[in-house]
């Protein structure tokens, strides 16, 4: 448990970063996990050279989903869309146990803290909800549902 609920995750849960509505966004999407009722909206503003100039979120969820969303925003700000997509894929593969971050090089940085959810299958969707929502926003889909 201590492995998953580490200080960093608890801190982002308590004080989520970039936790606000964005007025001037280029993309937004609503993510919904009907199983637990978690809902969040991700906003993205695209800057020069296809970089993510700003990214924010609002919503309700458990500590895992909220911290994951918060840390996603801090990790992706300033990255190009291409870089963000690579990190999205790696995060998803790490959470579902397809990518062993101890064995393979990755660009996850602090996000590696979520590796523990792969041992809690019921919680994987909590960790990945914000990421699926981000991906949907970039793809121009207005909402996604995880099941």
């Amino acid at each position: 448990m201590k492995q998953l609920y580490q200080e960093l995750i608890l801190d982002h849960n308590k004080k989520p970063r970039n936790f606000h509505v964005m007025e001037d966004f280029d993309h937004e999407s609503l993510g919904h996990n009907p199983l637990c009722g978690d809902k969040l909206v991700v906003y993205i503003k695209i800057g020069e050279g296809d970089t993510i100039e700003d990214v924010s979120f609002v919503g309700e969820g458990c500590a895992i989903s909220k911290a994951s969303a918060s840390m996603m925003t801090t990790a992706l700000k300033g990255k190009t869309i291409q870089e963000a997509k690579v990190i999205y894929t790696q995060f998803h593969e790490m959470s579902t146990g397809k990518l062993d971050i101890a064995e393979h090089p990755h660009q996850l940085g602090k996000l590696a803290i979520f590796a523990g959810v792969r041992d809690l299958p019921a919680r994987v969707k909590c960790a990945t909800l914000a990421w699926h929502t981000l991906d949907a926003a970039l793809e121009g889909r207005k909402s996604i549902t995880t099941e």
Partner: protein
Amino acid sequence: MLIKEQFSTFDVDKIRDDFPILSRRINDKPLVYVDNAASTQMPKPVIDAFSDYHSRYHANVHRGVHTLSQEATDAFEKVRTLVKSFIGAGDENEIIYTSGATDSINLVAQSYGRAFLNEGDEILVSNMEHHANIVPWDMLAKEKGLKIVVIPITDEGELDMNAYESLISEKTRIVAINHVSNALGTINPIKEITRIAHQHNAVVMVDGAQAVSHMEVNVVDLDCDFYAFSAHKMLGPTGVGVLYGKRELLDKMPPYRGGGDMILSVSFNTGVTFNQVPHKFEAGTPGIAGVIMLGEAIKYINTIGRDSIAAYENELLEYATLQALKIDGLRVIGTAKKKASVLSFVLDGVHPHDIGTVLDFHGVAIRSGHHCAQPVMERFQIPATSRASFAFYNTKEEVDIFINALKEVLEVFR
């Protein structure tokens, strides 16, 4: 002191020895299983019945003239008599085996509902129903142009009886209500609900899944028209359930599914003749082992006695509720005067799923989520609750472990 004395009259240690799973360790801690409203655990005689049937007398029922088939049929049909007495029905032909409470309710919706309800008719459904007693009616309503009318519940989670009396009318054909709410623990006044429904010639479908193993149930006294429950919430296996229906209703209802065993004769020349109740509703080879295990579960419950079970579980619930309310920021959802052993709650600032995960690390199994009762969550304007639900094999010490684990949750998250 009073609580301690009453606890001591119930030999829970001896009972626990009958449940092999209770000696398991989870995350290096003793398992504290308080998710009984989702599914109960099995005592040894129930588990052994599975092996015994398959080792000694496995065969299809109602089909062969050989010894094994006869033995299997006898065991299978004997359980019908046990079920009849268990719920106080008058006739074993009123006991239909199904795959579970959900299947039982779908049977009523698809058979009774499709045959006897017409456009404009109304179905009253309480706001505290499990999805199993909502969705089959909703599907039927869409198909036949019926209206679903919701009976509201109070802030305490009790059925609003005044609203019920004003909503029911000559248009009402079915009242769908649970005996005990799985999300709130509320025990509903079925006898009174039925009395009012019958004044308007409506039939009452009772979802008894959360009631039968926790309290005495007598369908004749309740005067309900249909009563559904599942074996796996009363020490039995998954995949088996029961529908009780009044004989005069069952007799006039058309079959729900076609196949073997539910017919008297099939001919391409003269057509199909249906069997009598209960077989009319039991197409195909049933879950024979599961039914036999259900029989053992009933015998086990009868040995302990549902009055003793109810008294002991009430003590557990009362103790757990008192301890839980001492926790800062904890709010109990469902505070009806009459409750079964369900403690649903929310904790300020902590999501139910985080509570569930932290508790699991302490070996404590609770349920987090909407409990397949989303309209209840809507009513209380919460996304989900955490729910501890107790059975007679739980102990006061386990409640303490659960409460201490909850305190640990607060230490982690606040």
